């Protein structure tokens, strides 16, 4: 927690437009899904995020940008 703050501080001196710092879960094995399923998956993730108790949702989905 405090390490990331020091890293961020150092980065800020060299990078001008800083957007965000976060500690995240990154999947080692990502899942590719086809386009028809993409909407179901987004609906699923949104239904999780909608909950008041939920802080963060991470998944291993590779979204195709289109």
């Amino acid at each position, binding site marked *: 927690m405090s390490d990331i703050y020091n890293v961020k501080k150092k980065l800020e001196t060299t990078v001008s437009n800083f957007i965000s710092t976060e500690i995240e879960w990154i999947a080692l094995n990502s899942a590719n899904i086809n386009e028809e399923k993409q909407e179901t998956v987004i609906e699923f993730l949104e239904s999780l995020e909608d909950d008041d108790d939920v802080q963060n949702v991470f998944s*291993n989905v590779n979204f195709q940008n289109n």
Partner: protein
Amino acid sequence: MAGHSHWAGIKHKKGKADKQRSKIFSKLSKEITVAAKLGDKDPAMNPRLRSAIQAARSANMPKDNIERAIDKSSAATGVNFENLRYEGFGPDKIAVIVETLTDNKNRTASKYQNNISKKWGKFRHSGICIT
């Protein structure tokens, strides 16, 4: 459509965006309140609070909201918040990690067991996805 006010057209979109915004704010302020409650009220002394405030700032949360969230931590002494992590599989076997912050883990747990598991797939406490 004649005689149609512009607002009628945008209110649906704006209503949705406002709702999402307030939802994000309430999540961020919850994290600030809990962080301030568990540690020092001074962000310089409390790394968790510091990163919570930074996250709130980068989401353009008003300063008033941040201060209110910190103040709230001294008022809510009877409530105990807990971090719980859920892991599970969603549609098409995608793996999902859900981090929750709750004052009543039984409520949260039953919510997952009932609503989400029924509709989408299995959700349990930590230990399914990460090995």
